[in-house]
């Protein structure tokens, strides 16, 4: 490939919005969960299981994790973009990051719905 | 040593207002143009202009270019050439509107037009009362203008040589100008710019004085180059002292402050301008106000411990107006005077500001000089505009806001004339064999001299001499002494030594080269001032006082003429003032009062 600095990928806005939207979801979830836990005050393993047995809580928790991983994807991708200059290596790291985060998502689902 | 030669249709030296305005004409005409500048274009000193640019747009009240012309002639103390003044005042609206189209962020009136404010010496109906003629962008007009013009040049793909210093003008035996030698400051490399048209827009040389509103870069490089190439300098005795420089620091406080209602006061809080200019008061022309201030200080009515400044008071104005129209002044007050101008008056003194004289030009921007009995013979291939040129529209005293107008109108006309001459299509003339020799010799002398004069000390000696001997008030005997002193300084300036021998960004070498330019200007100023035995505009002598025969000390019978200082032998000659405008009746001689 010729050695020329290329910009103009024409994306970024969606990610930028997504990063903010996911942050809002995480914030709302944190407040909501804090309230639930304050009301229920689970003190045993069974009580904790009880809280997460609720379908709505399950869904919200899963949404939280999806938001967290998507948020993390943009942040970590930006770090690779800043510090890793060789395109091939950077692409590899992107793929590894995506694989890990998708894996985490599946793992989160498994934990939540195995309960 | 072979020197690289770069060939262009036109080379413009200087990328301030005039240079950038010329460049737009040439680039948009599709000519191969190089613009050389010692600094990145937006760092040129036009950036520091504050108050506005004059144009009789009449956006807030009735105005007419003939009134503007009358004011300019009167402001010049009738030394301005009336053809050039008519040309400038008539063109004002066009060039200001063009700037607006380039994107300049002018302030606006309620109906969306360009905002205009009153300024010193600008009156309606042939001197009746102050008129709102100064088109302004807050108190940052020069900044807004310079950036807008740089931006337009970016759009027009102008080729800039940034941080290149022009060294010498190249002329052949017949006197044609063929370009310049220049040095790339980053590498110290010398190059010949071979051009069919050479335009000087190098600005003023306010740094010849100790106390100056001017930037460090205002070292009269164009004048120095012209002088070394044998071209005379016109009306160099006329230097404007701006009434309101911050005491001690020299930083400019715009006349727009008085335009917005600011008042000058002495130690007893008196509005002293009422005594000196009962009609225009604080908005009298700059030479009048500066002299009044200097008189107050001289007679012991100055302020401060040393009673050496007066006060500029805007505390009675609405703070919101100040912050909207004069935000930069508020900042300057805090930074350089330690004064919050909303609450306290600013300490100000008259400070060297503008060079009315310069390289003699026709109003078309073509450089002219005496040849074979013709006092204004065109120097082929050579053009100049802005402060380095003398068209002459400012005569013995420039009106505020006419400098920005000058650089627009004459920057443009120099560009247009160059385009016209280039389209007439002459080929490049051959470079003389010794085209770069003079520059190389100067540089090698500076680099290799041992036991020479120190640049800093020599410059200081020149600045002190100019300040003491050619200031706001001038005295016959002091001027005589000044001439011999400045010739002494010149000897040192021809023997400069630097310690820094590096090729990379050698600012010591740059300053030495600048000193060689400054001294040409200082010498021309002192000798021309000594020779003019009258008072006129900014040039006021004790031995030419205000009498019934010669009101204000002005002697039209003997001295209604332009000085031409010849740098070849330090001699003076004179040429007549053009009292004949292009289309209107002349503005007849009158005693000047505001």
């Amino acid at each position, binding site marked *: 490939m010729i050695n020329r*600095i290329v*910009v*103009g*990928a024409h*994306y*970024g*806005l969606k*990610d*930028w919005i997504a990063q903010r939207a996911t942050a809002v979801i995480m914030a709302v979830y944190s407040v909501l969960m804090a309230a639930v836990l304050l009301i229920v005050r689970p003190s045993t393993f069974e009580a904790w299981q009880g809280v997460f047995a609720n379908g709505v809580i399950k869904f919200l928790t899963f949404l939280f994790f999806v938001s967290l991983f998507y948020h993390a994807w943009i942040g970590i991708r*930006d770090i690779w*973009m*800043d*510090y890793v200059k060789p395109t091939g290596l950077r692409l590899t790291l992107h793929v590894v990051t995506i694989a890990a985060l998708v894996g985490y998502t599946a793992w989160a689902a498994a934990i939540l719905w195995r309960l | 040593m072979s020197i690289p030669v770069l060939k262009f249709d036109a080379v413009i030296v200087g990328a301030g207002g005039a240079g950038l305005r010329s460049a737009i004409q040439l680039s948009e005409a599709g000519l191969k143009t190089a613009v050389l500048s010692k*600094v*990145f274009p*937006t*760092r040129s*000193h036009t*950036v*520091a202009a504050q108050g506005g640019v004059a144009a009789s*747009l009449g956006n807030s009240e009735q105005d007419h270019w003939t009134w503007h012309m009358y004011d300019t002639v009167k402001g010049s103390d009738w030394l301005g050439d009336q053809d050039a003044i008519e040309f400038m005042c008539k063109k004002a609206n066009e060039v200001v*509107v*063009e700037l*607006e*189209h*380039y*994107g300049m*962020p*002018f*302030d*606006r*009136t*309620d*109906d*969306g*037009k*360009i905002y205009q404010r009153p300024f010193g010496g600008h009156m309606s109906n042939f001197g009746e009362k102050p008129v709102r003629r100064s088109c302004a*962008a807050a108190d*940052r007009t020069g900044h807004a203008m310079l950036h*807008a013009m740089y*931006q337009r040049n*970016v*759009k027009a793909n102008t080729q800039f040589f940034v941080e290149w210093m022009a060294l010498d003008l190249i002329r052949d035996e017949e006197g044609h100008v063929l370009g310049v030698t220049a040095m790339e400051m*980053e590498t110290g490399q010398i190059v010949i710019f071979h051009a069919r048209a050479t335009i000087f827009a190098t600005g003023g040389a306010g740094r010849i004085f100790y106390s100056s509103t001017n*930037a*460090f870069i205002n070292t009269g490089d164009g004048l120095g180059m012209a002088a070394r190439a044998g071209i005379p300098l016109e009306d160099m005795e006329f230097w404007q002292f701006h009434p309101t420089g911050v005491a001690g*620091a020299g930083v*400019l406080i715009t006349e727009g402050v008085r335009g917005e209602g600011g008042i000058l006061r002495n130690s007893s809080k008196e509005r002293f301008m009422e005594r000196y200019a009962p009609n225009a008061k604080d908005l009298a022309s700059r030479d009048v106000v500066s002299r009044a201030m200097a008189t107050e200080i001289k007679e012991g009515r100055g302020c401060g411990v040393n009673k050496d400044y007066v006060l500029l008071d805007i505390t009675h104005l609405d703070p919101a107006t100040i912050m909207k129209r004069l935000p930069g002044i508020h900042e300057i007050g805090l*930074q*350089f005077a330690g004064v919050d101008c909303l609450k306290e008056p600013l300490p100000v003194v008259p400070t060297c500001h503008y060079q009315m004289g310069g390289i003699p030009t026709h109003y078309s921007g073509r450089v002219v000089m005496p040849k074979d009995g013709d006092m204004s013979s065109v120097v082929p291939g050579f053009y100049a505009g802005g402060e380095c040129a003398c068209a002459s529209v400012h005569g013995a005293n420039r009106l505020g806001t006419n400098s920005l107008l000058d650089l627009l109108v004459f920057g443009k006309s120099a560009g247009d004339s160059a385009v016209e001459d280039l389209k007439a299509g002459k080929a490049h003339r051959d470079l003389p064999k010794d085209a770069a020799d003079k520059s190389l010799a100067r540089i090698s002398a500076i680099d290799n001299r041992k036991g020479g004069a120190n*640049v*800093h000390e020599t410059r200081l000696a020149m600045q002190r001499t100019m300040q003491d001997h050619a200031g706001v008030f001038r005295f016959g005997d002091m001027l005589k002494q000044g001439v011999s002193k400045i010739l002494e300084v010149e000897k040192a300036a021809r023997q400069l030594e630097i*310690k*820094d021998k*590096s*090729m*990379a*960004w050698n*600012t*010591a070498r740059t300053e030495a080269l600048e000193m060689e330019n400054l001294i040409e200007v200082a010498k021309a100023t002192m000798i021309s001032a000594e020779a003019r035995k009258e008072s006129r505009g900014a040039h006021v002598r004790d031995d030419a006082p205000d009498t019934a025969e010669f009101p204000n000390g002005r002697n039209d019978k003997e001295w209604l003429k332009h000085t031409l200082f010849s740098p070849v032998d330090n001699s003076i000659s004179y040429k007549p003032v053009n009292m004949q405008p292009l289309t209107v009746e002349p503005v007849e001689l009158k005693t000047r009062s505001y």
Partner: protein
Amino acid sequence: MSKRMVQFSIYRYDPDKDDAPYMQDISVELEPTDRKLLDALTKLKAKDDAISYRRSCREGVCGSDAMNINGKNGLACLTDIDSLKQPIVLRPLPGLPVIRDLIVDMTQFFKQYHSIKPYLINNDPPPERERLQSPEDREELNGLYECILCACCSTSCPSFWWNPDKFVGPAGLLAAYRFIADTRDQATSERLDNLEDPYRLFRCHSIMNCVDVCPKGLNPTKAIGKIKDMMVARAV
């Protein structure tokens, strides 16, 4: 203020004779009238004419004498000497190649400025007189057009340090918004297209060093936020 000795530690590098840059300790006696750092530099240069820096207007409008002063970017001509802790440590602006001493190569900075098409685009035939603009519309340009291109902001921005070739930087983005905000400009859409890029615009992470150092008190972060707002408004 009185006469006083002031201690400096200055970054020195002359490519003609130095293998590597070094810090030089030097002191200078200042007069009571020497207020600003630039006054002190002028005195230092009178002592040692090889000390190299850019300077011009000495009143904070030309943007020449930006440097790193005791770890923070600023203009020498607007910095009070007596407000600085001694020894006063002077370094060139960070993140740009050093040419000599305090002089940096600003090519990259101006390249980014030029990349946003820093000129008014209006393809209507120019009218006889000025284009009208209401005072309110004109007010939108305040805080934008005053930029002096000193590069204090961009060279204090970590995102610009990492990607000077791709991230437009605070100065360039401020200029971009200056034209987007101008009611006379007709290229808003193209300007937004030009910036919609993970590097050019979205490298800004609102670190706000630019706001902290701007000698003119401008706020590039806010302008960048407004560009993003416009992109959102366009997209949703």
